């Protein structure tokens, strides 16, 4: 299918909401927030203390026992996945030359985004830092000894 490009000075022929504009605004708004969220995430997880060496189940359990980090990580999950998916959509729109391929890829992108946002949100909300039957040495120190 050939793409019709409108004359630059032709009047606007658009019906419904201008989603491209909202997408453009979203990339900038979420991007600004993500700079703070991700720099903070990298600083606490990779720079402070023992960095990557200290990250294990007990570390995550300790962090997510604090509502502050739950909100932080949830915000990061939603903002980053939608930001990344919309960026990939832009790239697909630029390079996919067949309309059917483009549509399929864009649908796949939003499908993956929806699945991961749902999965991540469920994990944060249903997470148990002290699961029953787990070895005590793998759990955060505040868990009651079983």
């Amino acid at each position: 299918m050939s793409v019709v490009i409108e004359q630059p000075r032709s009047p606007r022929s658009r019906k419904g909401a201008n989603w491209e504009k909202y997408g453009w605004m979203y990339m900038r708004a979420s991007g600004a927030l993500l700079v703070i969220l991700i720099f903070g995430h990298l600083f606490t997880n990779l720079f402070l203390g023992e960095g990557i060496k200290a990250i294990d189940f007990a570390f995550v359990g300790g962090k997510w026992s604090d509502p502050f980090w739950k909100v932080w990580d949830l915000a990061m999950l939603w903002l980053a996945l939608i930001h990344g998916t919309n960026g990939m959509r832009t790239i697909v729109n630029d390079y996919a030359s067949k309309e059917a391929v483009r549509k399929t890829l864009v649908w796949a992108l939003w499908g993956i985004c929806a699945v991961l946002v749902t999965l991540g949100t469920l994990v944060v909300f249903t997470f148990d830092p002290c699961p029953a039957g787990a070895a005590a040495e793998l759990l955060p120190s505040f868990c009651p000894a079983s």
Partner: protein
Amino acid sequence: MPTMPAGTLYRGKVGMWSWVLHRITGVAIFFFLLVHVLDTALVRLSPEAYNAVIGTYKTPIIGLAELGLVAAILFHALNGVRVILIDFWRKGVKYQNVMFWIVVAVALLIFIGFAPRHLAHVFG
């Protein structure tokens, strides 16, 4: 062979290359994000499953790849701020060129602050 047009504002210059880098780093970060949400979701399965997978993040090869990831994030984040300034700041377009070099300098500075510490964690 077509020759490159001379004297264009964009092509072959900072504007074009920052755009190219922004795309490449963006795609790389996107694919890491997909993996990262999945590996973190393992905390819901069992401590053993999560620790086993996150253990691979501490190996030398993945440890080095993390340096690349951090470098990509630093450039993408700071160049994103540059894009916002070009769009919304009155003098943004005028200073887009110098802002690119500020982005590179600040990214490099933070990277130099981070890399030795991270390498000490991975190899220490």
